[in-house]
């Protein structure tokens, strides 16, 4: 339900995977087939084997490249799993504004469900999906509890919350 860039994750995994397949395949082919080995030595021999970071310029280029890679990868990691929101409702008026915090929803809904005999635990969190605030109610049912009965109970609690809030935010119920 979070805002992870899933297409980017797939693209990164696919690209690195293809590069590794190509690399492994090329090395194996060069090791096994003599004529391919000739290609390898030709190409590799053409490279300059005197790569030498004792030159200040080379060092700067290498360090700069490493730094860029590290920063990009850190950004990539940090951007996983974002999309939580603290604001469920925001209504502006000329003389002020009303903001309903996600914690209000979490406290009310968790309190209403925690004592239900079929509920082992419940946690509520807020997300922003397509620009709209939405709630996720994660219920752990007790062993053997019927998900359909539990869902009816959760829906009743959500309807009471709708009345409190005065608007209907999208709600995802998960049972695991």
């Amino acid at each position, binding site marked *: 339900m*979070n805002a*992870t860039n*899933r297409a980017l994750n*797939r693209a*990164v*995994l*696919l690209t*690195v*995977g293809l590069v*590794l*397949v190509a*690399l*492994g*395949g*090329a*090395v*194996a082919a*060069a*090791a096994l087939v003599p004529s391919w080995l000739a290609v390898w*030595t030709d190409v*590799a021999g053409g*490279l300059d*084997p*005197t*790569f*030498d*970071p004792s030159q200040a310029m*080379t*060092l700067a280029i*290498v360090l700069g*490249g*490493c730094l860029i*890679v*590290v920063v990009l*990868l850190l950004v990539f*990691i940090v951007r*996983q799993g974002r999309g939580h929101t603290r604001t469920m*409702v*925001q209504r502006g008026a000329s003389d002020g504004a009303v903001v309903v915090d996600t914690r209000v929803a979490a406290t009310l809904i968790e309190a209403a469900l925690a004592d239900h005999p079929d509920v082992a635990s419940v946690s509520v969190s807020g997300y922003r*999906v*397509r620009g*709209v605030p*939405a709630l996720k*109610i994660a219920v752990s049912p007790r*062993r*053997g*509890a019927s998900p*359909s009965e539990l*869902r009816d109970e*959760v*829906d009743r609690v959500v309807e009471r919350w*709708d009345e409190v809030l005065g*608007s*209907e935010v999208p*709600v*995802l*119920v*998960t*049972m*695991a």
Partner: protein
Amino acid sequence: MSDTTTRDRSAVYRRIVRRETHSPRSTPAIALAVAGILVAGWVGTESVLRFAGRPALLVDPADAVASAIALPESVDTAVLVASAAVVALIGLALVLVAVLPGRRANHVGRTGRTALVVDNRAIASALARTAARAAGVGADQVVVSVARRVTEVRVSRSSGWPVDESSVTAAVTAELARLDLAPSISPRVIVERRGVVGA
């Protein structure tokens, strides 16, 4: 902010449900990024050490490049092919993770006021209780496994007590109908022929 219209709501629910039933692949992506950071950090460190004329941590970068170029001659063919195959297999695994749908082990309920996603374990637990009740056996005499389209309900009866397989099937089918899950699950009920003594 005004209330979302029904159409907006269903689009939001479609996205939420899609995200809840498919893996974001964050774990392999983060693992890959961490590996990339380690490699980049190592290359940078070795380069600085080399520039300062200090001994390398692991391998001198110039030596590494030179030995990569000389790889086919300097390393035993069998070792080289084996390591190349391992690298290619890791790559293949990454390609599969990227390309396959990455479905999670859960099912989607009917969307009404709320959207519902139920984990297969929760479904199995509910079906186990239903089956145990219908069979008149203890909860630990029923083992249920839930897959994407089928569920297997395995009942071990108490010795000397018959279990009516059709009534168990009917009860499980009724519970699945009430759950109304997508994709739909068809049950397969198996009553063990040998009874359990002392259960």
